[in-house]
């Protein structure tokens, strides 16, 4: 598969949706990618099954705060530092892959690949946005890598070699803080067998497909949006106005409860529980959607996804859920990312099959 300039907007839209309210606004990385692909250039996306056994792949991600990113932006030199990773790699990798395919972290590796002139692997380790570096396919299967490199926008690097079971999140986050709340992250190069076992395949293409689908919603009737979503196993859970947002601070970002009033007077409120990402959608005590499924809140007029910070009082929104990658629903994985793992007293419930239109 190839990605050209014309696919960037759809890719960004898909990335925003998969962020589930978090993972950062992909706008900036969209611009980076656009600069790289202008003038008819393209980017190759290769599937896991196309990888030669000796092929080496470098995962890439940004870790930090959107506040730092919004000012420091992203540098082209970080990409070189992470890719060549002096002292960490024996040889130059053949491809890059997204570490977390969501928000800006979906498009950053694509822009990097385009800059470096290498293909992107059609796979990642999360298939959606999660705030913690431990909630990845690697983290939940005990396959966390032993070698990492982080690099800040001043060219400073840290190379980590770890043994045993250490939370990557607990290691990296304080370093990111020390390094100005924004670092690029890569790991030792990875090969086909490892990636086949521990990555989620096809997620880059899925992201593009989701973006293309959402791109049509503003021109569709609500009924046809519901039908389109259903083809992807998704649901429109409700539409209305945010009437209340109650936030309370927590260590890594504010936890918030949002109440959405549907159009019909007297109809039950739709409630969203969130922290960085949207975790639960509840109506009348019934869980309509829950993490790890992908919950997206979009602007009611434009169908543009909103970050969890942007869902504030007086906003008119639709609430949508899409199914998570199947691998997240396997028992070990689910235990790490179900509502209980995020501090809610309820079990995971798959996306409610009720036709929601007219109810909220």
């Amino acid at each position, binding site marked *: 598969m190839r990605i050209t300039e014309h696919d960037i907007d759809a890719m960004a839209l898909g990335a925003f949706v998969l962020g589930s309210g978090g993972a950062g606004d992909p706008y900036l990385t969209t611009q980076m990618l656009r600069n790289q692909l202008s003038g008819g250039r393209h980017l190759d996306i290769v599937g896991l099954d196309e990888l030669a056994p000796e092929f080496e792949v470098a995962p890439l991600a940004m870790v930090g705060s959107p506040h730092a990113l*919004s000012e*420091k932006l*992203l540098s082209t*030199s970080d990409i070189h530092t992470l890719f060549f990773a002096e002292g960490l790699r024996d040889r130059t990798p053949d491809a890059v892959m997204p570490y977390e395919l969501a928000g800006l972290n979906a498009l950053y590796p694509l822009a990097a690949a385009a800059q470096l002139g290498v293909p992107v692997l059609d796979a990642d380790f999360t298939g959606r946005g999660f705030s913690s570096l431990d909630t990845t396919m690697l983290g939940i299967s005990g396959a966390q890598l032993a070698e990492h490199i982080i690099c800040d926008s001043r060219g400073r690097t840290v190379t980590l070699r770890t043994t045993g079971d250490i939370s990557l999140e607990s290691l990296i986050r304080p370093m990111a803080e020390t390094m*100005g709340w924004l670092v690029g992250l890569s790991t030792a190069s990875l090969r086909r067998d490892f990636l086949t076992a521990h990555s989620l395949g096809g997620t880059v293409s899925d992201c593009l497909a989701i973006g293309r689908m959402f791109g049509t919603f503003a021109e569709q009737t609500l009924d046809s949006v519901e039908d389109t979503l259903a083809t992807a196993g998704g649901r429109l859970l409700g539409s209305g106005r945010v009437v209340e947002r109650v936030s309370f601070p927590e*260590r890594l970002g*504010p936890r918030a409860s949002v109440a959405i009033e549907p159009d019909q007077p007297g109809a039950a409120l739709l409630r969203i529980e969130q922290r960085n990402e949207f975790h639960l959608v509840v109506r009348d005590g019934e869980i309509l959607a829950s993490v790890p499924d992908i919950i997206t809140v979009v602007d009611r007029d434009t169908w543009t996804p909103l970050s969890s910070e*942007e869902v504030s009082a*007086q906003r008119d929104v639709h609430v949508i859920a899409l199914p998570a990658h199947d691998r997240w629903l396997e028992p070990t994985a689910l235990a790490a990312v179900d509502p209980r793992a995020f501090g809610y007293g309820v079990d995971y419930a798959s996306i409610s099959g009720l036709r929601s239109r007219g109810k909220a």
Partner: protein
Amino acid sequence: MTGSIDRAGYGAVRLGVSTSRNGVQAVAINDSGNIISANAVNRSASLADSVATALAPLLEQVDASTVSSVALATSWLEEQTHTRSTHARVGVLRIGLTSTGAPPLSGWPAALAAQLDGPRVIVAGGADVDGRPLADLDLDAIDSFARQCQGLVDAVAISSVFSPLTAEHELAAAERLAAVLGSVPITLSHTVGGFGLLERENAAILNASLRHLGSELVSDARRGLDRAGITAELYLAQNDGTLLSAEAAAVMPVRVFDSRLATAANGAALGAGVSDAIVIDFDDELPRASVVQGNSVALESDRSSLAGVRVIQYLPRGFDLPRSSNPVDRLRQHARNAPLLAVGDLAGRGAEDGPPFGATVPEHAEFASAIGAATADVSASVSGFIDSDDDRDNLLEQNRQRAVEEAILAGAHPSFTRVTAVDETPISHMVGEPRRLVVIAAGPPFSFADEATQVHNSTQQNNERKAP
């Protein structure tokens, strides 16, 4: 108007003037909030003539010496960018090598970017998230940029990483450039907007490109007032519907790019005596709709765009309305039980079955934008940042004070300026509950006329609202 404008109490007479592509409307509003005179004329080629002609009949009923302020709402700058190739050549200096992945003008419409056509560089410097320098400012690179610009550019925009925290490098670079470029106008990004380098820089570049037009706009408007025999202070309506002194507007044209949508919305609600409304403005060929919530026009809260460029500026949440379709249902979502108002000089005309979309035409609909301008407060906002280690109360107080000072600098009356909104946004993925802070302050236009004896009353409100 009979008492429906509840904003009275100070000064003598406030004049409001609004210009659209086709027409000019002027109103005089007395200190009880009543319209004592109104007039509309067709636009002529010269803005000064248009303003003078529109005001002339008013001054038969109003003694020019009792006029305390004049507020002009205009889409003149927006029009110029369509009708003339008027953007100046702009040199862009960005400070902060952390940002090379998205160089200046990333995401701009190609045609507009091509018009600006000046040198663009990114040099070392800027601040980190804690305000400490990212690197020393690269003065040699700045000198070399200055030489590149010499004789080539009409204006310069300077942006720097985290300049809302510390503007030191922007100021130092400006000084360095001025030494080479002399009187070439320079826009510093920290004077234009809050956090978000790319968006703030975009606004600074737009502003720089509009500087010569801004001066032209203000001097034309002033000439119109002179011709009409009015010596009162001139204010320009900002994009968000509040006012800015003419002097400040001349150097900050991006803020007064297109204010008519906001003033028309505010004036319509005032005319109808409602606090919430959906307002459709029929002044130009393409009707535009906006929403009034709690007495003022609803503003875009996050991402907004000006001239097709992504910025963070206070712009009305507006919609273009093709006449053929019926988009009112969509607008209904924004103000469910609020009336739908049609204003502008075409509001009551041209439709055999009354106003389009079944809208109500409020009193003085034709003059809504002029009324909105005449009755607006002057306002200014400041951005701040509160970290976990900071003394929150103290910082908040400092920012409130800064906002009031900025509003007074923008032309608000020192005696009556107060903080009108405080917005704190928690920042995710950072330890310790840091917050971005926006504080808005506002007050009635300063006027020498009401200094002596007038007592300001009803516009002074202490109930703060949340910023958009």
